[in-house]
């Protein structure tokens, strides 16, 4: 849901240029190289971008603090879009904006392809109370019809599995991060889906935000995250 409008707007805007897809802000000749992305993730770049792995881990699982989102297996389209938005300021973050600005469009494409292709184990985390999780599950699966709050799963897929490439997964995402990013929408610091997520986020109160976050953190498919396959074929977006 988030980016579909942006996608449309971008598509329309690009017609005069005759470009095929809007996602490719990197130079047209560039062959996406997930292996090069792995190098950036591990070592950073000469231009000053720090290694992604410092916070997100080489696996993309980040650490259990929940301060940094899990990005393993998130679509390359989504990840590169977010990095571009951090760089342009559409999405504001004191940490990520300078990092993204230090990456070239080609490097963004490579590192996004790398993290899209990795799997990361789920760390054991302290679970929230069952009542809070139950409340979050209700919002996630059904929403709140009385207030026209759509169920999260309507766009983010069953169990928050994501609707790649445009819509990110929520399943297994750290509660702290989900809570934080919903607050960023509420407060207007995140504007890269203003007409979709901001409207919904503003309808939720603090407890509902916490509930949704707590619910998604503990959802994950038993089939996922058990092995790390390293970088797979890039360019599947």
């Amino acid at each position, binding site marked *: *849901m988030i980016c*579909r*409008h942006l*996608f*449309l*707007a971008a*598509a*329309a805007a690009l*017609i005069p240029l*005759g470009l*095929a*897809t809007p996602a490719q802000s990197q130079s047209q000749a560039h062959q996406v190289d997930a292996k090069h992305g792995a190098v950036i993730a591990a070592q950073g770049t000469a231009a000053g971008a720090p290694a992604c792995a410092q916070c997100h881990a080489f696996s993309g699982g980040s650490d259990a603090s929940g301060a940094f989102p899990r990005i393993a297996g998130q679509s390359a389209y989504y990840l590169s879009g977010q990095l571009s938005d951090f760089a342009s300021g559409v999405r504001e973050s004191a940490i990520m904006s300078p990092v993204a600005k230090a990456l070239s469009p080609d490097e963004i494409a490579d590192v996004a392809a790398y993290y899209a292709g990795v799997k990361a184990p789920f760390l054991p985390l302290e679970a929230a109370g069952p009542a809070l999780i139950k409340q979050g599950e209700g919002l996630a*699966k*059904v*929403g709140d*019809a009385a*207030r*026209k709050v*759509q*169920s999260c*799963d*309507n*766009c983010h*897929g*069953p169990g928050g599995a994501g609707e790649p490439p445009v819509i990110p997964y929520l399943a297994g995402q750290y509660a702290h991060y989900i809570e934080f990013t919903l607050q960023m929408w509420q407060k207007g610091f995140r504007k890269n889906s203003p*007409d*979709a997520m901001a*409207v919904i986020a503003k309808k939720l109160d603090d407890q509902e935000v916490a509930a949704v976050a707590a619910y998604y953190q503990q959802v994950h498919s038993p089939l996922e995250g058990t092995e790390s396959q390293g970088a797979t074929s890039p360019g599947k977006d």
Partner: protein
Amino acid sequence: MPTRLKPVDVVTIGVGLTGSMAGLELAETGLKVVGLERGGGRDTVPDFQSPAIHDELRFSIRKGMMQDNTKVAVTFRNDSHQTALPIRRWESFLPGQGLGGSFVHWNGQSFRFQVADFIYRTHILERYGKKFLDACGPELTIQDWGVTYDELEAHYDRFDYLCGVSGKAGNIKGQIQPGGNPFEAPRSREYPNPPMKETYFGAIFRKGAESLGYHPYPQPSANLSRPYTNPLGLKLEQCVFCGFCERYACEHYAKASPQTVILPVLLKNPNYELRTNCEVLRINLDSTRKKATGVTYVDAAGQEFEQPADLVLITAFPLNNVRTLLLSGIGEPYDPKTAKGVVGRNYTYQTTGGPTVFMDESINVNPFMSSGAPGTMIDDFGGDNFDHSNLGFIGGQYVGSIMTNGRPIEFHPTPPGTPKWGLEWKRAVAHHYNHTILIQQHGTSTASRLNYLDLDPTYKDAWGQPLLRMTFDFPDNDIRMSQYIADKVVEIGRAMGGKTVVRGGTKRPYTTTVYQSTHNCGGAIMGDDPKTSVVNRYLQCWEVPNVFSLGASAFPQNGTYNYSLTIGATTLWALDAIKTKYLKAPGPLVPA
């Protein structure tokens, strides 16, 4: 013997768009209203939720939201010399069933008709003369509506704001507005919401159409471009272009439907009672046969009930309005041999078609990213917007790139010469899926004395009552019209950069096995003369004044445009007359 229930003031036969509007307006006046819906109850939560609602096999192919035609089908034939057979699989048109009716699975394409549409016969005679009209086809039976656009404007406006229609006005009080449709009838104010974002295919169409001097504009949409609160205080959300609109219900509160714009208020009104799974068998008349006493219906358990009511509103799908009148013996059935009688007369449809434009592989159309009304359109060939003097036909079509989806079972365009199955077909589908643009031609269906609805002499429904029989083919006039426009649209397809443009246009015979349009019209038409109409200008039955037949069955012929908004406007017009005139002095609102 049916169980006789406690009398009520009003009963509506069907609770779709017209039924829920009637319930809302009349229950507010203090009248006790009962809504009888043959299908089940349903709501956004839990019935329309993803991912179950995005089940293409269930809803698009197996027609999960449509009238149960194992119980009640429609029989069909092209002309009165043939034997009609039941349509066992809905394809050409899709009558909805269940609370909210077809206004749940509609696309949200939200046009108004034009000024000339309502005075069609007068307009054509004034502009071209009787000789011209006769030359177009002596069988044509076009009529004026008995109501004018000016009279309906306030009701159109109210309905626009009830639904939160998203669009760009082209004509506000006679002033042409840049960006809108310069051919549209004057509206009193701007749309409640700005137009939807333009799609990529729409932008390509716009460029092609503009290069030929046409006037592209964004299709008005009842899928909303932004969050909106309607005058009833009901909130709608923004469309997310999920690509599952027509044939589906919206899980996002983003499409105007009874569930989003009417029912939450109506169902709280203590004067209103909804009864679902209730199949109305007939309207009961007293011994004079000039007054209805109520209706007889069967509930889900097979129990028969008589529901007495002072006022009966037929608020079903247009075809079912006509059938209800025929089964109840209200109005004289139309006889095509003598051209006498009225019920079933002037059944019309909608002409469709349009070219398929195969683009270069570098153009990624992404058709799956769409809504029900995502079009960029032109109205240069709509209605009587162009001079027909030397063309030999009346009527017209709107033209636009309106790709409502790229769903995998339904959407696989391949160029001519491609095998219909097998490896080559699969290769062609993969090759063209994302590089093909469809253009729609959609327009008038001219009434003819050869086309009509009556009761089938052979086939019966699950309750032993005759099915409705449809006798229909497009008049030659409509084929000439559509084929003329088809040539123009091929030029647009080429101007868009199409490598291959496969010409469209309506052909004969009309077939019920290919989807065309769910805009079935007429059969219980409105007018000024009881000899040529079933209902008067207020949609009140001439013969039985306490029965009103609301909806598109009242349209004397179909205009160029998809008709939902005109149903809304004429329904509000009729309800206004019921509230301000009929309730004060029940009886005929127009002397016969």
